[in-house]
């Protein structure tokens, strides 16, 4: 039985850590009651890129999906804990619609809808907002411009999205999240299935988007982490459970004195 009710934690939180946009408090995630994450806590600053790194299998992507409440469809995943954003626990609220529109999710493999490019953005927009047709068109054009796709696709908007290249498709997915003007974009190894050139474009795009939206990135690529992110959270397995080893700004974490050898090796690879 929880002694401290949500209200207490929320009150304490608001006056102490105002700059923190999202605060994650003791998340426990278990995959058909085999514990993967054990009370993980960290904070995400607004308009900054936070990266979660760590060896594979430590449940990074699982946490990301928990943010967007995708775990509700999987009966054998149990998530408990608090994700506070604008004093609302997003993990347990009933109003999934706002959670999904606030937290956009970009998958590892680009997955545009099997419809035309324009429709790919128009469908979610029409579904989640009451804008008129022309207003929607402007928003879509502005999103396509912000992801740098507009020049490439402006004359073939009605062609199926499958005909775009891998990098373009991933950028279309990012645009699809942007169209709902989210506050946080979750990216699950967005560039792992792309060639280096489009990977560089995506990274460049992430930095550009920083002023509009906060980004939570999960990646294996250390140079990408160094190049792009502002602060880092390191997940490290300890007796088959994952715990947050260190977190802070990139330079704090990288040049910390007492890192054990494996961690520094891993971080500087």
């Amino acid at each position, binding site marked *: 039985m929880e002694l401290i009710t949500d209200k207490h934690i929320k009150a304490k939180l608001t006056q102490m850590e105002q700059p923190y946009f999202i605060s994650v408090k003791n998340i426990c995630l278990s995959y058909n009651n085999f514990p993967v994450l054990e009370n993980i806590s960290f904070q995400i600053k607004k308009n900054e890129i936070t990266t979660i790194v760590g060896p594979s299998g430590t449940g990074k992507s699982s946490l990301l999906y928990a943010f967007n409440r*995708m*775990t509700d*469809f999987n009966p054998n995943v149990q998530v408990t804990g608090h994700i506070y954003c604008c004093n609302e626990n997003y993990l347990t609220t009933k109003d999934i619609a706002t959670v999904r529109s606030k937290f956009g999710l970009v998958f590892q493999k680009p997955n545009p809808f099997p419809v035309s490019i324009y429709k790919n953005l128009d469908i979610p927009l029409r579904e989640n907002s009451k804008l008129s047709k022309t207003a929607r068109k402007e928003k879509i054009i502005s999103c396509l411009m912000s992801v740098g796709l507009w020049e490439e696709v402006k004359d073939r908007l009605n062609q199926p999205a499958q005909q775009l290249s891998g990098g373009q498709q991933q950028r279309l997915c990012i645009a699809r999240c942007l169209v709902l003007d989210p506050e946080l974009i979750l990216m699950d190894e967005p560039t792992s299935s792309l060639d280096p050139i489009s990977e560089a474009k995506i990274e460049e795009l992430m930095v550009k988007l920083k002023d509009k939206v906060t980004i939570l990135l999960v990646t294996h690529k250390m140079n990408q982490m160094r190049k792009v992110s502002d602060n880092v959270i390191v997940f490290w397995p300890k007796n088959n459970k994952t715990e947050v080893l260190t977190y802070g700004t990139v330079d704090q974490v990288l040049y910390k004195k007492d890192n054990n050898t494996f961690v520094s090796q891993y971080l500087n690879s």
Partner: protein
Amino acid sequence: MKNKIFILTSWLSFFTFFAIFFAVTGNIIFTGLDNFSFSFLFNTFNNSGRDGGISTIIISTLIIVAFALFVSVIISILSAICIDYFSKNIRITKILKLSIDTLSATPSIVFGLIGNIIFCEFLGLGYSLISGSLTLALMILPIQTRIILIGLNSVPKDIRLGAYALNLKPFTSYFRIKIHLIKKQILSGTFMGLGRSLAETAALLFTSGYGVKMPSSLLDSGRTLSIHIYDLAMNVPGGNENAYKSALTLILLVFIISLITATIQRRFNLGQQEFVWN
């Protein structure tokens, strides 16, 4: 708001299906169950079906359906691969697909005629289990080919390109790689074939005949459950009661088989995956 109506109509369709289902099967179960004794399943046929059992009929049904499925699974995989192999050449695929579709659309009564002429007379097999099951195989072949073809077409492009890149011989690329990907379609195609063959009456009437004795070989005439139901319901006065009982046994048979296939699907996780997020 539209979404609410849509969800409502889909739930409605779900319940109407169950309503129809229980209306039809309920009628069978209700009339079939009164004084339904298990001896009905085991003792043999007498008094033209009015009060005897249906043991011989169940056995000849299983033989016919099993043999038909056996033949049609192999041939449908081959013809699906053949269509997929020629998919580059538009003209050939067009002809093949057209012929498969026309075959799948041929009415069962025409299959009865054709089976009678080809298997009973031309090949001289006469009224026998084998001509019945071959006609059945011919009938369920197109449905299975069609579903396996859907599977083959949905093989992801990169696996297909990978096979070309490695310059694999067609035999290996089909029988060693792609066949594992379409196991699910093969199973669901076989099951649809099974369902269709158990439900078939018109075609078998003229091919596998009317025989009620225990078939000693594939060349003996044997009567399937659905023909037995037809004969009792339509031909033998007073056969109504046993007709419903045999219909009940048929439904129990199918229920058990569908449970088995459901467990097979779950054990080899052939079933279609849910939206597992990782």
